[in-house]
């Protein structure tokens, strides 16, 4: 290993942790009580659920695959899925704005949005 290699490794780690730190602080400051969980499949929105109501919903796809979304105690997670890698199931629970769970094989994305945008919908409901 040359000295340049160590500089490269150090720089990469510093960049990674800086980005991580900034996004974490931003996410924490932009999350409030009225956060919503949005589920999209292949870019199309399949549903919106308030993060403060416990629920469970199954999403089935034409080819027989499925994902089960569960919301409880203000957290969202994929509790069950048909995909082979199970990355979405192992993913930690999410509850901050812009956190996502992705199931690449099923093209399903679960994401959290802060309350501001969805306030109108909540009132309308």
């Amino acid at each position, binding site marked *: 290993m*040359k000295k340049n290699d160590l500089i490269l490794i150090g720089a990469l780690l510093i960049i990674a942790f800086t980005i991580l730190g900034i996004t974490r602080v931003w996410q924490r400051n932009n999350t409030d009580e009225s956060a919503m969980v949005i589920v999209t499949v292949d870019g199309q929105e399949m549903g919106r659920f308030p993060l403060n109501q416990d629920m469970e919903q199954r999403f089935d796809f034409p080819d027989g695959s499925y994902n089960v979304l569960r919301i409880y105690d203000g957290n969202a997670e994929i509790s069950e899925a048909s995909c082979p890698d199970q990355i979405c199931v192992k993913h930690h629970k999410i509850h901050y704005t812009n956190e996502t769970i*992705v199931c690449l094989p099923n093209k399903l994305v679960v994401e959290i949005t802060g309350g501001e945008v969805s306030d109108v919908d909540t009132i309308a409901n």
Partner: protein
Amino acid sequence: MKMNTRKIAYLGLLIALAFVLSYVEVLLPLNIGIPGAKVGLANIVIVVALYTIGGKNAAMLSLVRVLLVGLTFGNFAMMLYSLAGAVLSFVMMYVAKRTKKLSITGVSVIGGVFHNVGQIIVAIFVLETSQLIYYLPFLIVIGTISGVVIGILSGMICRRVKVAFA
């Protein structure tokens, strides 16, 4: 470049090895809940090829590997992610090697990081979800760690392979 029998046999051997290592990775996935995160075992073969038989052959090897693995174990979408990762990672490794500022370990770290970054960029476009960018720091860290390990291993292999070719 002239292809002699020895070189053809060596290239075939490396393709088979890359294929098997990809299969091992399918069997033992790094499952920590981050999409696109991979150990990239097959990258050992690509790095060794880059340092023993040159860029052109190594590029060919990388593409053949993606096609073989995609057709055998994955679907079209997976092949697309894999291809983006492989191409970006290879180009960056090639450039990094040409600058001669980094050793084989540094080049492998570049490869590991950009493999993950390439995959997440394609995923952002395919899923139309820019929020995936939040996985970037995790992917950089994982790519760096696996890159160091693979770089050291590749260095050891290269020393021995070069002896056999001399």
